[in-house]
């Protein structure tokens, strides 16, 4: 698993833009907020808690093609599956690498953006916790959708139609600052579902 993880992280490092894509996208969504809704502090703070989840959802959704499809398109998936006898290990390493490459940078820009919106430290911490547990669950979801739609070209809208409804519970509970245990539970359920369906999707490709 470590080999595959290392390979995915190096791949992201060599195509250096990967680390900045989602964080820049995420930051831009939040920065345009005051232009849309004015500069009323209280209003912005309320909107901030919701918009970060929209930003996170879109960031994860837009990068889902890179989980399996990029390796499938160029033939690297065959090498990965030949070198790794366990499909489950391939899937777990993809969860971790995708989270590190596309979600972790969001946590780096989030404190700076929170200060822009005058969010208190206590609230930033709770938002962090929510996003941390929620983002894992969302990565689990896009991974299994990515595995299931492997090889289907130009289907980003179809994937979005499948993924967005599954994100709704995360969005509902994510905006409530005290609900990180529920997000943790949702992520654990997503993990179980995702492992099973992703393995099925990959086996379908192999077969």
């Amino acid at each position, binding site marked *: 698993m470590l080999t595959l993880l290392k390979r995915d992280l190096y791949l992201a490092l060599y195509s250096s833009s990967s680390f900045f894509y989602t964080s820049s996208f995420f930051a831009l969504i939040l920065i345009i907020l005051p232009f849309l809704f004015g500069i009323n502090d209280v209003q912005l703070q309320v909107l901030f808690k919701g918009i970060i989840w929209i930003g996170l959802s879109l960031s994860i959704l837009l990068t889902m093609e890179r989980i399996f499809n990029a390796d499938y398109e160029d033939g690297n998936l065959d090498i990965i599956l030949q*070198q790794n006898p366990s499909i489950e290990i391939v899937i777990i390493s993809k969860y971790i690498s995708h989270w590190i490459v596309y979600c972790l940078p969001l946590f780096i820009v989030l404190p700076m953006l929170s200060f822009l919106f005058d969010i208190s430290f206590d609230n930033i911490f709770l938002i962090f916790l929510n996003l941390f547990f929620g983002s894992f669950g969302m990565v689990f979801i896009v991974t299994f959708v990515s595995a299931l739609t492997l090889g289907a070209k130009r289907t980003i809208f179809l994937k979005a139609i499948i993924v967005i409804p599954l994100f709704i519970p995360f969005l509902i509970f994510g905006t409530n600052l005290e609900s990180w245990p529920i997000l943790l539970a949702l992520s654990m359920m997503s993990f179980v579902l995702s492992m099973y369906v992703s393995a099925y999707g990959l086996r379908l490709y192999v077969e």
Partner: protein
Amino acid sequence: MNELKIEDLTCYRGDKLVLKDLNMKLKSGDSLVIRGSNGSGKTTLLRVLSNFIKSYNGKILFNDHNVLDDANYRNCFNFVGQKNSLKDNLSVKNNLKLWEIIYKKNIFYSKLLEDFNISHLMERDVASLSDGQKKCISLLRLNLTESKIWYLDEPFVFLDEENSQLLIQKIRNFNNKNGIVIITSNINLHNTFTNEIKI
């Protein structure tokens, strides 16, 4: 001495019968060219032999072990498919670095590229290379494992005369070291490799 035996291999893709009652036996040092029209099942056969496709009837035995039950079989072969396994947005060197990680092997980049006389491409982005150059780099994966069998899916496509000869020499050298090679091809290689079947 290694032996690859295929007994009564039948494989369906969906409802379509692709391979029917295929039997063959290859020993160390043998090469086999599989010819057939588009869609005849050449790639499917290689994917079955590489254990990517596991739902089939019949038996594939490598040194008398059924490949479906043999966990070590995946280390015994090298499969080079029609896709190049290269990341277009990276340089050739960075692609080789990724292979280095996944194959857990130190690679001397320029020495490896010298195989097809392409060491000058090391710093070039893969996206800027011709299909033939990409194919040459892709075939360099054959050097990265100590395998006993090579499965090559249309390896001569896009290769010019000079590189085709280099590849033929590479295959012969592998045969001389007791390697087994199975090649699928649309082109006639009868003058180069004597064993040929049509499917």
